[in-house]
């Protein structure tokens, strides 16, 4: 902690120094916008918010005089004559504005209104080079990060994706600092491979593991970190999302789950612009005593007693388990340049603290982005270099403290003896906690450190106006060092089991991604109305993951120890390598810049393909039609913008690395000598899964740009779906064999609606709603029987969503109460139907009852709603609601508490016949009973963010020498508006927004949650200045 304070104070000093430099640097540099004869000076801003607009084009009508605004939105037009001129101002994504201006007058302020649909916005993802949005036949999700971080500062990068792009859903794993979550775009279709989208930063593919295997996080609670959160939102300009195979064809193998591209900020020509920001706030767990349900035990007289371990702890005067974290962050950037060279240097320190005193993360991010443009504009180089150092202290250690809270009074351990009624479990050394007491965590430390460097170099060459070629090269290096230390305990209580004599696990991994991407495009205009673009390209991707693991058990003395000093040591290593080489060709026809047809073909080879399979080819076709520019719709004020789009395409997902090979492995043999043993049966015919997608939709700006609608219907299939079929162990080879025999389907609709009901000069109201519905189904299992996915009763069954829950469903039971015993039941009846199929509503004996469909863990509904009220262009108030529905979670905290640990009221009183019926099933050997007793519909609508952001008046900003500044107060996760289900059989679930994220759960389909931390409530205050 002392070290952290030092770090913090150093960071503050750095910030102050940076600020001082900024202020000092501005002395004498502050622009003096004094008009001169024959000139017009001014500033271009966004009308709604007053935000300064760089790169706006200002043109004097009837002349060749024009200017482009700098980073402060300023422009100067010179060489003018006459008293007044007509100025036309344009900016991508804004409505052009023509107005009169006085020559030689005072500086003017030009206010532009946004277009509802940004048809001419440049898109760089899924295209060869740059393309305008109008030419694309598929929808592209876009997040304006630079603007969003001001109004609703995210805790993690993942948080920005969920609520901004319909069809994209990040499902948070848990609320501890450092935990990640899975990202799903248009559902999950892969039955045995990853369902995560690819991640690119400035054109290079980067490590995107959603559930990192790290020693800092024990796997059971499913809170593994996600590498996407290494990135610093402050460095990002925008994020583009390709949602499926029809858009991601040119990314080829591995892209069937979609692509997320992160575009970082770059400098613009002009004087240096200094930007600084700092934030602090609080993180806490709301209502901890009420959130965690009380536990119960049966007293020796048979009465059922309540025990709340937290309240009991408070009554003893012991320190509270949960504390208030105080996150703090600060950083800044300097950017600028000339017409030829631009630069941006940025640095950030971010310390996040959770509501466990030992759970925190220090992140240091640095970035240097440089661009060079040759004097003849034919050659351009964009360099991006980012570095990260992250030190994360996990809330988990050996097992989280939540374990001991949830399972307090486990199996009647609080029950006093008849001989001595005062002797209870909570009067003993454990004080009611099962296994671990909060103070035991002083002797543990779990950390996860990451050093990451990502480098991208993009060469763009335009030898002729009709020809462009680019080459992007870059690596992403991630070094991860993680550890879990349980010190040797001095007493004999041994809360950490075998680790009580001391245990340390240490893991190191080194991940390398390398991208080489070449593409060329040639334009040809056979006529004045027709334009063609021919593109070709080739890409090479390299991935390597090397890990080293060491463990030491039993230290000689209490206190910290290392692996070297342990009496028992073990170690292991792994090495994975994968290579992809692909080429593509694409042809695009454009008619009058409003009708577009695109066809493309990509071919890929991959080192993971079987020997008998050399290459795969992915075709694509798309059309885009800007109807609003057709004569029959032109100038219609009620529908000023309308674009129809449709696309069909394929992309792949490569098999698991090495799964095609038949191998033995070296294993220690007799007397410790070397031996070999069967490892992998292999499949020489293995090939990639092929995602095939059709989408159709439209983008419309309506009612004088007051309403924007984006609608898409999609139909995605995964053909040749790879199934990991368990091998019959009697065949001698353990594990699974991967075969291409399945098919899955994901269909759905996505809708985004933006409405601006109030757009007055002093008051603006913007509403945004997104909703996405996805229906997921396994359409073919290749004739194989349903397969179990996890131990938590999840199966892949034809006709149902992947990894659905199939469980017996008790509908009635007669409770039999026996004094001083846990009640049992007779005549337990279940719903009938088809085993591993649908229930039919009939009632049958549970002895022979089928396991019927009870839900699936992947949300089928997701959406968001936000309202932004802008007052006097300076104050913006935001309320954002995040919605997720149609998902089911098996909550072990509840189900196993009921049936396995017998510490709930309902199970001990027998007042819930259905629950007691499940208890009978468990006793009869049906292991799924505890899962059924803890099944939750995990839908919710949560007030994700409320914020107030105030753009400081210039005079206040100038007090610190800044040209502008803002102050934002925001709150996160402060309330639920709706929960689909709050309790199961009388026991509450702490938070429906817990979705397990297990390292090793390749498909990310695990639906069993246990002992996780609830989402933290947060308040944040942020201050930022631009100089």
């Amino acid at each position: 902690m002392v070290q952290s304070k030092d770090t913090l104070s150093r960071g503050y000093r750095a910030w102050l120094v940076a600020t001082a430099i900024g202020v000092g640097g501005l002395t004498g540099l502050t622009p003096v916008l004094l008009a001169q004869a024959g000139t017009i000076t001014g500033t271009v801003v966004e009308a709604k918010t007053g935000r300064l607009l760089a790169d706006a084009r200002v043109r004097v009508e009837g002349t060749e005089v024009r200017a482009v605004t700098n980073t402060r939105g300023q422009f100067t037009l010179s060489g003018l004559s006459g008293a007044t001129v007509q100025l036309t101002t344009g900016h991508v994504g804004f409505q052009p504005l023509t107005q009169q201006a006085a020559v030689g007058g005072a500086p003017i302020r030009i206010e532009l209104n946004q277009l509802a649909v940004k048809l001419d916005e440049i898109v760089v993802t899924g295209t060869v080079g740059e393309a305008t949005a109008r030419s694309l036949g598929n929808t592209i999700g876009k997040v304006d990060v630079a603007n969003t971080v001001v109004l609703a500062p995210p805790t993690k990068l993942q948080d920005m994706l969920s609520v901004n792009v319909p069809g994209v859903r990040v499902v948070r794993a848990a609320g501890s600092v450092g935990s990640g979550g899975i990202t799903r775009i248009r559902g999950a279709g892969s039955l045995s491979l990853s369902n995560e989208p690819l991640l690119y930063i400035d054109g290079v593919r980067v490590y995107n593991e959603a559930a990192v295997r790290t020693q800092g996080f024990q796997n059971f609670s499913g809170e593994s970190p996600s590498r996407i959160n290494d990135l610093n939102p402050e460095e990002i300009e925008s994020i583009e999302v390709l949602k499926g195979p029809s858009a991601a064809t040119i990314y080829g193998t591995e892209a069937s789950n979609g692509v997320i591209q992160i575009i970082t900020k770059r400098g613009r020509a002009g004087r240096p612009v200094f930007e600084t920001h700092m934030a602090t706030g609080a993180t806490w767990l709301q209502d901890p005593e009420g959130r965690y349900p009380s536990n119960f035990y049966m007293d020796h007289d048979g009465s059922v007693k309540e025990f709340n371990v937290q309240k009991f702890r408070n009554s003893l005067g012991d320190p509270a388990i949960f504390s208030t974290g105080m996150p703090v962050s600060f950083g800044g950037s300097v950017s600028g340049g000339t017409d030829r060279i631009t630069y941006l240097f940025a640095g950030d320190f971010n310390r996040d603290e959770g509501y466990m005193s030992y759970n925190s993360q220090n992140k240091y991010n640095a970035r240097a982005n440089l661009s060079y443009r040759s004097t003849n504009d034919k050659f351009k180089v964009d360099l991006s270099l980012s570095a990260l150092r992250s030190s994360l202290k996990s809330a988990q250690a050996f097992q989280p403290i939540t374990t001991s809270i949830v399972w307090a009074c486990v199996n009647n351990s609080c029950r006093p003896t008849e001989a001595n009624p005062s002797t209870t479990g909570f009067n003993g050394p454990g004080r009611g906690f099962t296994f671990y007491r909060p103070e035991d965590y002083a002797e543990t430390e779990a950390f996860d450190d990451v050093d990451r460097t990502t480098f991208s170099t993009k060469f763009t060459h335009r030898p002729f106006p009709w020809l462009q070629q680019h080459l992007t090269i870059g690596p992403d290096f991630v070094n991860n060092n993680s550890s879990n230390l349980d010190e040797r305990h001095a007493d004999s209580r041994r809360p950490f089991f075998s680790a009580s004599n001391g245990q340390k696990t240490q893991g190191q991994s080194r991940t390398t991604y390398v991208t080489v991407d070449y593409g060329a495009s040639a334009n040809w205009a056979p006529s004045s109305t027709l334009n063609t673009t021919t593109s070709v390209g080739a890409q090479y991707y390299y991935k390597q993951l090397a890990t080293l693991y060491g463990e030491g058990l039993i230290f000689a003395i209490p206190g910290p120890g290392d692996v070297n000093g342990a009496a028992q040591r073990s170690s292991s290593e792994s090495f994975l390598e994968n290579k992809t080489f692909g080429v593509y060709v694409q042809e695009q026809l454009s008619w009058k810049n409003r009708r577009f047809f695109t066809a493309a073909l990509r071919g890929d080879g991959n080192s993971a393909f079987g020997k008998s399979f050399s290459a795969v080819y992915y075709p694509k076709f798309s059309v885009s039609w800007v109807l609003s520019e057709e004569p029959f719709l032109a100038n219609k004020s009620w529908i000023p913008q309308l674009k129809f789009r449709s696309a069909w395409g394929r992309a792949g997902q490569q098999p698991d690395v090495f799964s095609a090979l038949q191998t033995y492995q070296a294993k220690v043999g007799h007397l410790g000598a070397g031996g070999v043993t069967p490892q992998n049966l292999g499949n020489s015919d293995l090939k990639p899964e092929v995602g095939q997608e059709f989408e159709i939709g439209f983008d419309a700006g309506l009612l004088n740009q007051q309403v924007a609608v984006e609608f898409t219907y999609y139909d995605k299939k995964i053909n040749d779906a790879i199934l990991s079929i368990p091998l019959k162990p009697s065949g001698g080879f353990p594990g699974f064999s991967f075969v291409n025999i399945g098919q899955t389907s994901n269909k759905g609709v996505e809708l985004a609606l933006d409405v601006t009901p109030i757009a007055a000069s002093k008051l603006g109201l913007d509403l945004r709603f997104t909703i996405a519905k996805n229906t997921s189904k396994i359409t073919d299992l290749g004739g194989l029987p349903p397969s179990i996915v996890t131990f938590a009763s999840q199966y892949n069954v034809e006709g149902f969503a992947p990894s659905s829950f199939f469980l017996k469903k008790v509908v009635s039971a007669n409770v039999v109460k026996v004094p001083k015993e846990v009640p049992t039941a007779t005549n337990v009846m279940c719903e009938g139907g088809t085993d591993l199929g649908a229930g039919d509503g009939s009632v049958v004996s549970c002895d022979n009852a089928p396991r019927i469909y009870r839900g699936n863990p992947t949300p089928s509904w997701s959406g968001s709603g936000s309202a932004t009220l802008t007052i006097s262009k300076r104050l913006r108030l935001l309320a954002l609601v995040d919605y997720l529905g149609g998902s089911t979670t098996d909550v072990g905290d509840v189900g196993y508490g009921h049936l396995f640990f017998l510490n709930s009221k309902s199970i001990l009183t027998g007042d819930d016949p259905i629950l007691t019926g499940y208890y009978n099933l468990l006793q009869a050997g049906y292991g799924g009973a505890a899962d059924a007793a803890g099944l939750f519909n995990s839908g919710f609508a949560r007030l994700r963010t409320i914020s107030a952001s105030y753009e400081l008046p210039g005079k206040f900003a100038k007090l610190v020498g800044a040209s502008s500044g803002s102050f934002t107060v925001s709150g996160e996760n402060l309330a639920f508006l709706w929960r689909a289900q709050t309790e199961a059989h009388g026991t509450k679930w702490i938070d429906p927004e817990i979705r397990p994220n297990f390292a090793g759960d390749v498909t990310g389909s695990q639906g069993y949650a246990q002992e996780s931390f609830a989402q933290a409530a947060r308040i944040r205050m942020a201050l930022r200045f631009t100089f």
Partner: protein
Amino acid sequence: MRTSHDFAGRATVFSRAATGLVVTIAAVALGACSNLLDVKYPGRIPIEQVDNPALASVLVDGVVGAFECAYNNYVGGTSVHSDEYQSASDNGLLANWGERNITAENDDYAVGQCEANTSDFGLHVPMHTARYQAEDVFKRIGTWTDAQVAGRVGLQATVRAFAGYAYTLLGETYCSVAFDRGGPQPPAASLTLAAARFAEAVTLGGQAGAGSADIVTLANVGLARVNLNLKNWAAAATFAAKVPAGFEYFADRGIENDRRWNKIQYFATDLGAFVVSEPLRTMNDPRVLVKDAKKPAFNPYIDLWVTTKYNGLGAPIRLASYREARLILAEANAMIGDVPGAMAIINGRRGEVGLTPLAAGNQAAAVDHIIEERRRELSFEGGHRLNDLIRKNIPWKVGRNPFTSRPYGATTCWPIPAKETNGF
């Protein structure tokens, strides 16, 4: 001044040329990308490399090592499943083993591996891997010559003996068995195969000479054991009688790798997930090596009782012994009708350890005594107790586990795992 047609014409030419060039390059690259896409896979041995006579001894070490790891899991799993241990943990995965809750769907049982850090007592995969490996290596060695492989016949005897034990263990405690992805068969089929493998081991070991003497004796104990299970009493007695006094054969264990850790030591003694059952704590028999560890079990409110038969993670586990052979001989004699001869054997041993002799007036009483002697002499080893519970219909632990209050399940013999039934 250039016109747009100039550009257009050049664009057409370039476009076609570029497309053709790149497609050609791509085709060549894809066709010749075997190097481009080559990857390293350290730690993975392509199957072709295994078929090498120079590796014969490594392959045999692999067979023995695979069996030892399977046997280690088997001893631990059968011991805690039988009445030798009770679960002392609320960890569901572990507790199931000691509460008769291992079902066909239980993956820990079905596909768990040997490594202590990643699996509890995975029985099915390790045992079948060992069995398959023994059969596979025997065939491979059979295709090689004595000139290629030194001591070839002795190596064959070794792998045959361990194949025999794999079949024996599967046949003793599984409800039904399946081999080489085939359908289910009665356990006796496995025992019959075991007898055949042991017989070959004896023959080949005899041909190999003195260096294989221990393997021959090991196979003779195996033959006695299998014939006892098959109720071939005379044969059982014959083979048991061939075992010399003092013979013991251990499955080696070691601390250097968690694949070789003694799992009873790890999960029961060190982790405290299982405690020795109460009846075994008070037998006052020096052969029943148990003690109060004077510390809490996995669940801290339970006292930890452990066996001292194993004194660390590297403690070897007895696979076959003269003591076992004597008990087989005693039981075979009793079943043949020689009750006095049977009682003489067990009382002789009781006298050695300072216990009073037992009396039996009839065959049934003698067998009861022998089973009890087996319980003591062979405690915590070999899966013998579970085998006796099954073959002698000895009552199982029923009701509730007194340490966790959870009810015992209904599992007796090991079910064929669902992954075996539904697998590929």
